[in-house]
């Protein structure tokens, strides 16, 4: 018998006025997998994240987590279902200290024991009382990750974790994400522009272009796919 995927995006469409952001996109993530979601700018990757976290309601289709639909769940209850996320352009609580940002992440939980552990894990414990907005961009991204981890998620959605990082930082990030999966028993869905990172980290890759799925498979399969090469490099004349 086939195991049920942890996350099922089932023929989801989302339109904004005349613009089709997602068109019948289906995407499954098995428990314990790292899945990369890639595509050119405007392909609908962040829209997909916003649909999964219920910031957007899809026009058609369903999103199921652990077998149950998420569509009846309000955005603020998503984290209780076990889904946490980071944002493309770092959405920190700028007026709060690092530790308070992470405590907000634990808001939906009963205790705050996870906060200190998480701060140590992402190596932020020494700056925990600093204002979040005082820190350099790369560190702010770690605060955001710590906030997501503090909620004790089963599924972690990372929106461009490599964005704005230096070459060295990106290399370390790859190892870090794989280690994260093991240490926190996570399933990870990763939106990323940095092709090298996705190809080295992801078990499977899902490619969107203009809101449609154009390919999916292992990194090697996707890299050899004609449609993918066209989408990234433009169709041959």
């Amino acid at each position, binding site marked *: 018998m086939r195991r049920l995927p942890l996350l099922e995006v089932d023929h989801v469409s989302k339109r904004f006025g005349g613009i089709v952001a997602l068109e019948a996109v289906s995407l499954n993530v098995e428990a314990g997998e790292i899945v990369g979601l890639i595509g050119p700018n405007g392909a609908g990757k962040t829209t997909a994240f916003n649909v999964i*976290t219920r*910031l957007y309601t899809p026009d058609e289709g369903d999103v199921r987590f652990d077998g149950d639909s998420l569509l009846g769940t*309000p*955005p*603020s*209850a*998503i*984290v*209780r279902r076990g889904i*946490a*996320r980071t*944002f493309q352009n770092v*959405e*920190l*609580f*700028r*007026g*709060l200290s690092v530790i*308070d940002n992470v*405590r*907000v*992440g634990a*808001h*939906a939980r009963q205790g705050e024991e996870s906060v200190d552990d998480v701060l140590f894990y992402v190596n932020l414990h020494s700056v925990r*009382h600093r204002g979040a907005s005082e820190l350099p961009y790369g560190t702010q991204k770690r605060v955001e990750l710590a*906030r997501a981890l503090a*909620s004790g998620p089963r599924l972690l959605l990372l929106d461009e974790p490599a964005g704005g990082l230096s070459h060295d930082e990106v290399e370390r990030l790859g190892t870090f994400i794989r280690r994260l999966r093991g240490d926190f028993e996570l399933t990870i869905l990763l939106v990323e522009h940095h092709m090298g990172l996705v190809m080295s980290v992801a078990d499977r890759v899902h490619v969107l272009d203009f809101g449609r799925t154009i390919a999916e498979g292992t990194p090697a399969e996707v890299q050899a796919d004609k449609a993918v090469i066209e989408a990234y490099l433009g169709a041959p004349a």
Partner: protein
Amino acid sequence: MRLRLSVELLGFVALTAIVAELPRFVGDYRARELAIVGMYFIALLGLSILTGYSGQISLGHGAFMAIGGYTTAILTVNGFYGHPVRDLWTIPIAGVVAGIAGLLVGVPALRLSGLYLALITFGIAVSFPQLPKKFDHFLGGTTGKILNLAKPPYGLDTTTNDWIYYLTWGIALVLLLCAWLLVRGKTGRALKAIRDSEVAAASSGISLARYKTLAFGISAFYAGIAGSLYAIANAYVNPDVFPIILSVYLVVGLAVGGLDSLPGLIAGAALIYFLQNHADTVAKWLNHLPALSLDPKQPGISSVVFGAVLIVVMLLVPTGVGGLLRRVLHPLTTRLYTRS
């Protein structure tokens, strides 16, 4: 962090001592003036929770003060089923009635933000004074309602003004403590999170609807208490007691005190009282400056002075008195902190 806690507690104890001793050093009428400053302070505490912490602006808090004031007037004059209620007991009721009104305003406010919310709340401030004129049997029309003069409780040997002072500041200190406990706990953190990023707050499990309406309710509760005390001190209410400009003054006091600094709000409250009532004194001081001659008797001079002082204060300390305090205390606390 423990150091910061002790600094804050020490500050509170010092404030309590000052409040308790101050009437000995000032005249009876000054005590009354200070009591009114205390009422503004209470209203500003509420506004700070709403605007400074949850990030929702209100240009209509004068209306919530009016609701509190009218609740007290109705209960003491008309009474509850014909039984007049003693003014002291109407204070918490006034807070609750205003708080419920705040919750009701908070619901539509969920869909609005920034400028639109400012306009809606301003609309409330504008329209509210018309209600007593419409329901003049019940609310007394433009003449308003006359309350019994406030008297110290039987057996307490003190003047009325001193009594109003201690009553107001006693309540103010309790409400300051409550506000402080609220903002430093989980609720305050959730409010600040919403202020800084609504999407991230929602994704962290914070219900925007619940916390934003809660902030409106609490904030209006504070304003209602302030309005009730104001009615008791004045011994009358009418639409002019809570004019539209009162709501604007409160926002001014909040900006001067510092959006999210609770003790700084005392300075904001003092400034709005002082500039409303003693702008001519400021004009006299300013006349000592070279090349300035202001006629303190000239009509409109108080508004000019108010505006000018406000511009100067905001230029010098854009983060308000609270920001100034923090800047002075910050190096001290961080140094001690890193050493420990």
